[in-house]
């Protein structure tokens, strides 16, 4: 029987507040060390935490977007452990009464080979608010460790999933979906290089129908690629270990991207005993129905709702609608382009999913950095729709728009890309070709249908590629028939 891989993810999303979760120090990234470490971040004696309303609001937003229960009352707890970048000796987190309860996320998993996706629902167990720790620098400080507490106290939302994923691909699809969602609702900038979105993966293997295996937790994966590699390596390692008669010990492991392997950080015996207890410095957090509804009113239309609308309103295939709603920037771009050329949803979708995405990829840009505007793209699509340019001509217009900017109409004019749709001109051109190739015409008429392409090629060439292809084909067919 095949092994089944079981994966649950814990994601730390850094909330996009300007100040820290329990103090008024700035959270801006990249500042000089400790210039944003105020008395609370440093845990100086006598300081008290005061909860940031903006952080709570973002947690509510997430809960609503994930269709989750928002706790009317939640509790902050102390998670106790010793490390120099945690100067209080405990992290303020939430334990048995988190702000966000059970929810779910619908994800699109690429099905192998088909270029399509399968829908899957991943349950979210909970999401809780907590503070980030500082940063330890182990480089050369005369054998000492340097501590930067700028990051200490940065608000995080830890989002915990149920062990619902069965492959690295599913885990990546979930992480990407979650990443898109937190950015979509504007609670996290999603910058993975800067650590704004970090994943821990709980991985175990078992034979279906038997109890779940012992899990090992892979910590701190800060890219989707590492997430995928780490899970694949870890699952393979566990399967090999079990097949060789070994057993899996519960452990926390680190992924080494250079070696592409995981190694043990600590085992269950060495595991921390965090001794959680309610933080007496913080009172229970109450969220009223009224506050919840006020936050709900600020939520944008969510990706899934938009996807459904694109299918029902624009008759797009679900696959296209899924790709268009992969990020809010993409979806907004699509709608703004479509505004320029209503009724051309499918063409618009094809260009965005095709040329635009491919070009962004080649240039290493994301949608927010796209050099052309929806108005520019829409202007071009309009000219495809009204027959002014052929699809070959459109590609040329697109290249020019991308490289030099400008407007589609001016480029069409300057490059002489206007299609010939004047039937008189096309007929004259076809007549000439027929006259010059009498022998081939005879062959065609005696049943060699394949020659049609030969004539079409000649005619298109004679028009310098500008003839309206549909029209050309129609005239050619008629004239060749004699």
């Amino acid at each position: 029987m095949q092994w089944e891989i079981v994966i649950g993810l814990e994601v730390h999303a850094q909330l996009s507040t300007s100040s820290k979760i329990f103090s008024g120090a700035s959270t801006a990234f990249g500042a000089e060390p400790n210039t944003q470490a105020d008395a609370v971040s440093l845990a100086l004696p006598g300081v008290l935490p005061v909860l940031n309303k903006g952080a709570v609001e973002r947690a509510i937003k997430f809960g609503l977007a994930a269709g989750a229960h928002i706790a009317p009352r939640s509790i902050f707890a102390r998670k106790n452990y010793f490390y120099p970048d945690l100067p209080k000796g405990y992290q303020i987190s939430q334990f048995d009464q988190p702000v966000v309860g059970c929810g779910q996320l619908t994800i699109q998993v690429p099905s192998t080979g088909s270029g399509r996706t399968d829908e899957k629902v991943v349950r979210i167990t909970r999401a809780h608010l907590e503070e980030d720790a500082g940063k330890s620098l182990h480089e050369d400080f005369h054998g000492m460790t340097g501590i930067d507490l700028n990051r200490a106290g940065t608000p995080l939302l830890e989002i915990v999933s149920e062990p619902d994923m069965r492959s690295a691909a599913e885990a990546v699809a979930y992480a990407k979906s979650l990443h898109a969602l937190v950015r979509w609702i504007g609670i996290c900038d999603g910058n993975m290089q800067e650590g704004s979105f970090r994943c821990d993966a709980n991985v175990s293997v078992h034979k279906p129908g038997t109890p779940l295996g012992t899990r090992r937790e892979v910590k701190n994966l800060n890219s989707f690629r590492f997430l995928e590699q780490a899970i694949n390596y870890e699952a393979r390692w566990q399967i090999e270990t079990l097949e060789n008669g070994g057993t899996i010990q519960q452990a926390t492991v680190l992924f080494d991207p250079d070696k592409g392997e995981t190694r043990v950080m600590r085992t269950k015996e060495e595991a921390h005993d965090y001794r959680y207890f309610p933080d007496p410095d913080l009172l229970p957090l109450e969220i009223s129905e009224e506050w919840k509804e006020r936050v709900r009113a600020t939520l944008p239309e969510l990706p899934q709702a938009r996807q459904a609308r694109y299918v029902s309103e624009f008759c797009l295939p679900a696959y296209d609608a899924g790709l268009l709603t992969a990020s809010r920037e993409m979806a907004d771009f699509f709608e703004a382009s479509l505004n320029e050329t209503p009724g051309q949803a499918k063409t618009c979708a094809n260009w965005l999913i095709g040329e635009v995405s491919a070009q962004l990829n080649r240039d290493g840009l994301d949608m927010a950095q796209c050099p052309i505007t929806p108005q520019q793209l829409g202007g071009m699509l309009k000219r495809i729709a009204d027959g002014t340019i052929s699809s070959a001509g459109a590609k040329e217009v697109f290249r020019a728009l991308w490289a030099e900017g400008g407007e589609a109409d001016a480029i069409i004019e300057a490059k002489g890309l206007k299609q010939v749709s004047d039937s008189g001109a096309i007929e004259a051109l076809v007549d000439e070709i027929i006259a010059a190739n009498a022998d081939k015409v005879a062959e065609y008429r005696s049943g060699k249908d394949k020659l049609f392409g030969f004539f079409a090629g000649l005619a298109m060439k004679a028009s310098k590629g500008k003839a309206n292809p549909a029209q050309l084909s129609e005239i050619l067919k008629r004239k060749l028939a004699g």
Partner: protein
Amino acid sequence: MSLSIDDVKKVAQLARLAVTEQEAQTAHAQLSGIFGLIEEMRAVDTSGIEPMSHAQDVVQRLREDKVTEGNQREMFQQIAPQVESGLYLVPKVIE
């Protein structure tokens, strides 16, 4: 529920407190006294009463999300035993 001397030593270790055998004995006696008190309270019928997480029945007040603290690094670092390049230096720790 009774507390063993080993429990006391474990808690001390978790709290990074060095305790002598004598201190452990003293702490054991004191903590056992507290446990006795807790046992007594557990005898009270609290069914139907919502547990409290705080001694006062009030709720958390929230701050507006505004940056109110500027850079006071120089002042804070005056009391630090050792600093360099803006960092606080501590004995080397690598997990």
